[in-house]
């Protein structure tokens, strides 16, 4: 067929694709080279293992089908799926069609993209009508996603979302280009179909219709050129827009499956995660800081890191509750990423912890570490000591007098070096005690003991787990009361450490728990978090009171938690009786002693 500008109009697309490929390849190489030696070995080993296949499957499932977004938000999921998977199928079947047409695998890269421009309806090749209609249907599928995307910009509520992310100029160019690609393709193919009779079930009738009143000789090449420009602009703007998440996410999935991990230091793996954020905005609505009108959510932090304009105000104004990480469809390690960034952005203090040296170490079976927040909620400490005494445990109360910090608050504040000194000190003492178990009363401490301490052969347990174990061994009294309670999952214990069931099973021996809407993975933060060093007290109060009001709707007799900080924060709200799980257990001990005493008295009286 004679075409007006067959060679010229494909160039915007070719240039765009070439630029995109070079930049993305360059980034993949740079990211890989920037990893530590161990990570590189992990990748090398992983490449030849099953992990590669698993990664490919996961990339297909998450990058194209967007299964996780589907699960949290079906409409949003469909939008992403129709765009990504639909486009993918267009490319794949476009290539099949080109193969069918050429009868060989060698054809120019642009042929499948501009197929209906080049191929006349008179020419024949295998399955041509099938291909024509299939491509039409696929295009329709993609266009349904595009129209949802249009709609979303103007009406977020359809998606059940209160907020959408703010755009910057690179994103805007890419977004406009993306929005134009598929409508232009539909138009161009319809115009060509009007001239060449090569359309499918949608483009052919449209083409016939257009041929009645549109000067096709002019509009056909112009629209194909516009389509090529839209593609070219999209590819050129992609590396500097949020759409970089498309290639980055695939890369991230592979690295994650090859066991590459974040290591409290900013490296190229943290950069890969930053680039993998699609700015879908799912993390925005789940954040409780919205209540206090604070806009420092993860999507903004990642964006600021990418744009190199992150401020302390944004970075440190976060409760690290982990709700965003729970819902992130890409699985970005938002908490660790933020802590890593805090370590990077913080001037390390040259603290002296010389006073920690020395100090007694007692030999015992169990080391008990209460933590500073437990010292500020002494009824928890008292309850634990009562339980230890009752169960006859041989324990050493490690921080009874000289109380060293576990190190986690420093870690959360980015003070890695100072935290490391404390960790080293505590680690040595715990190991020297010869204990087989470390029981911790505070979930904040618990998490650092699990993550950052090196305690071989010592089992670290939060007291809720430990008490559950004692209960199973029959070392604790059971006493079911008529009280109805709500169990509040502390962030660090629940989402942070995945401990949801043991506290509930333990409590079921003492009280009946009311099931609530926001529990377990969805549980609310109390607002007391130590890790937010920018928030105002009045802003904390808003978050605390909001959570309390939600709990009060269920009219519980008491609120039970297993974190001293949650307890203290909720008690401050002064709306309901707040107890720690250890207090609930210890109360039954007191009761038992009293009833024993009564029984003893009766026996005595009878004897007299």
């Amino acid at each position: 067929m004679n075409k007006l500008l067959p060679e010229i109009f494909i160039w915007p697309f070719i240039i765009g694709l070439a630029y995109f490929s070079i930049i993305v390849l360059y980034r993949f190489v740079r990211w890989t080279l920037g990893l530590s030696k161990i990570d590189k070995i992990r990748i090398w080993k992983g490449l030849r293992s099953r992990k590669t296949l698993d990664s490919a499957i996961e990339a297909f499932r998450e990058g194209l089908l967007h299964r996780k977004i589907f699960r949290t938000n079906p409409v949003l999921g469909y939008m992403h799926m129709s765009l990504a998977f639909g486009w993918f199928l267009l490319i794949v079947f476009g290539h099949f069609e080109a193969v069918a047409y050429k009868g060989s695998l060698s054809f120019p890269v642009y042929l499948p993209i501009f197929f209906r421009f080049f191929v006349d309806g008179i020419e024949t090749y295998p399955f041509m009508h099938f291909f024509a209609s299939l491509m039409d249907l696929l295009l329709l599928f993609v266009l349904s996603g595009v129209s949802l995307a249009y709609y979303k910009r103007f009406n977020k509520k359809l998606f059940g979302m209160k907020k959408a992310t703010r755009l910057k100029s690179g994103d805007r160019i890419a977004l406009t280009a993306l929005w134009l690609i598929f409508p232009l393709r539909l138009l161009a193919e319809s115009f060509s179909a009007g001239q060449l009779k090569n359309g499918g079930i949608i483009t052919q009738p449209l083409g016939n219709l257009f041929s009645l009143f549109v000067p096709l000789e002019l509009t056909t090449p112009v629209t194909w050129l516009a389509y090529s420009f839209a593609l070219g602009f999209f590819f050129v703007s992609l590396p500097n827009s949020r759409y970089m998440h498309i290639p980055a996410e695939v890369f991230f999935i592979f690295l994650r499956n090859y066991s590459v991990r974040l290591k409290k230091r900013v490296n190229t793996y943290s950069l890969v995660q930053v680039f993998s954020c699609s700015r879908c905005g799912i993390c925005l609505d789940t954040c409780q800081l919205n209540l206090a009108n604070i806009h420092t959510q993860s999507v903004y932090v990642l964006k600021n890191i990418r744009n190199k304009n992150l401020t302390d105000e944004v970075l440190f104004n976060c409760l690290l509750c982990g709700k965003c990480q729970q819902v992130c469809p890409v699985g970005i390690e938002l908490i660790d990423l933020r802590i890593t960034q805090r370590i990077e952005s913080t001037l390390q203090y040259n603290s002296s912890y010389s006073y920690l040296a020395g100090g007694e170490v007692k030999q015992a079976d169990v080391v008990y570490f209460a933590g500073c927040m437990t010292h500020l909620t002494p009824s928890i400490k008292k309850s634990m000591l009562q339980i230890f005494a009752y169960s006859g445990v041989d324990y050493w109360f490690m921080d009874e007098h000289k109380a060293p910090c576990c190190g986690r608050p420093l870690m959360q504040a980015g003070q890695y070096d100072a935290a490391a000194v404390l960790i080293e000190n505590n680690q040595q003492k715990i190991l020297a005690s010869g204990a087989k178990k470390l029981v911790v009363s505070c979930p904040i401490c618990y998490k650092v003991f699990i993550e950052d301490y090196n305690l071989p052969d010592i089992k670290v347990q939060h007291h809720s787990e430990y008490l559950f174990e004692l209960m199973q061994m029959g070392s604790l009294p059971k006493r079911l009361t008529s009280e109805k309670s709500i169990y509040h999952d502390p962030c660090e214990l629940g989402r942070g450490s995945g401990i949801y069931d043991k506290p509930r099973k333990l409590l079921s021996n003492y009280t009946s728990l009311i099931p609530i809407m926001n529990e377990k993975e969805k549980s609310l933060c109390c607002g007391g978090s130590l890790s937010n060093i920018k928030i105002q007290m009045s802003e904390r109060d808003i978050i605390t009171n909001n959570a309390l009001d939600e709990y009060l709707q269920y009219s519980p007799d008491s609120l039970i938690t297993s974190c001293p900080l949650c307890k203290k924060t909720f008690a401050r709200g002064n709306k309901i009786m707040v107890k720690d799980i250890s207090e609930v257990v210890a109360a039954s001990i007191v009761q038992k002693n009293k009833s024993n005493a009564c029984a003893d008295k009766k026996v005595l009286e009878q004897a007299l």
Partner: protein
Amino acid sequence: MGKSIVTIGGGIAGIEASGILAELGYAVSVIEKEPDFGGKLKNWDHLFPNMRKAEEIEDYLSRKGKTPGITLFPNTTIASFENIKSGFVLKSNHGVSYSAHAVIVATGFEVFSAERKEEYGYKIYDNVITSADLEKRLKSGTPLTTLAGKTPQRIAFIHCVGSRDAKVGNTYCSKVCCVTGVKQAIEVNKLLPATQIFNFYMDLRMHGLEHEEIYKTAQEKHNIQFIRGRLSEVSENIDHSLLIKAEDTLSGRPLKMNVDLVVLLVGMEPGVGTTAIGKACNIEFNQYGYLKIPDVHLAGNLTSRKGIFVAGSCSCPMSVKDTIEHARSAAFEVHRYLIEN
């Protein structure tokens, strides 16, 4: 004149304001939820600044309560509150209706519940008491001992418990606790001269003509030691003595001390009654939960609603002296209002 007034609360402010209004010829009904009148005054032993017995004021108030024109209604609470053309109709829990041309709210304050400052161990450790507890003990005349009956060798008074503390939700100063702490320290020193006494403070707010003198006397004559620093936590030793941790901010060093008794100088909070009545009358509260006055300088006894007045510590923390003055000015405001309307 034949106009009637209802006063809600039969404490110092309620009785004082009602007494004056009765003297002016109004019919005043005083509603009190407790069986007797006088409010928290009956729990106090001596009053600063002149150390007079609180009973003297009690006697004064009980005479005042007998002014012709006053009717006292003990064991009564307000169940409903209604607006009518000439004023208000209040219904009690006993089903009795009171009509009033003006209402005085004098529901007073509540002592901060020290359990909420859990790190100080109130109701967890045996020998942690509040200033209100100590006042009762002093009044009862029984010897001041630890729970085990031992004479305390060392006592620590902790200032600002539940006041000026965002962590318990109260950012304001309760005004009376500083001088109460110094007063009680002196009293304890008089009872137990051999006992060492330490007051832990942030800063001492000794406003009032004589208060600074009391503070000076406490140091010079009564050997009371003042340590500038807020307490971080209290823990209990095996012998039920207490280990307190604080920072001495003058020497800039952390401090640990064993004491036998800890006295928490608890602040003031809006009472449960104040909150309930305020809601029932539909008048505004300020950010601290006290009843809101429209003008701090010129309308200290008015509320957001015409015809409803406020007297005493339901509008902000007040000493006994301030409460009486505030009640008198409330009586004057009510009188002026009833003449004008």
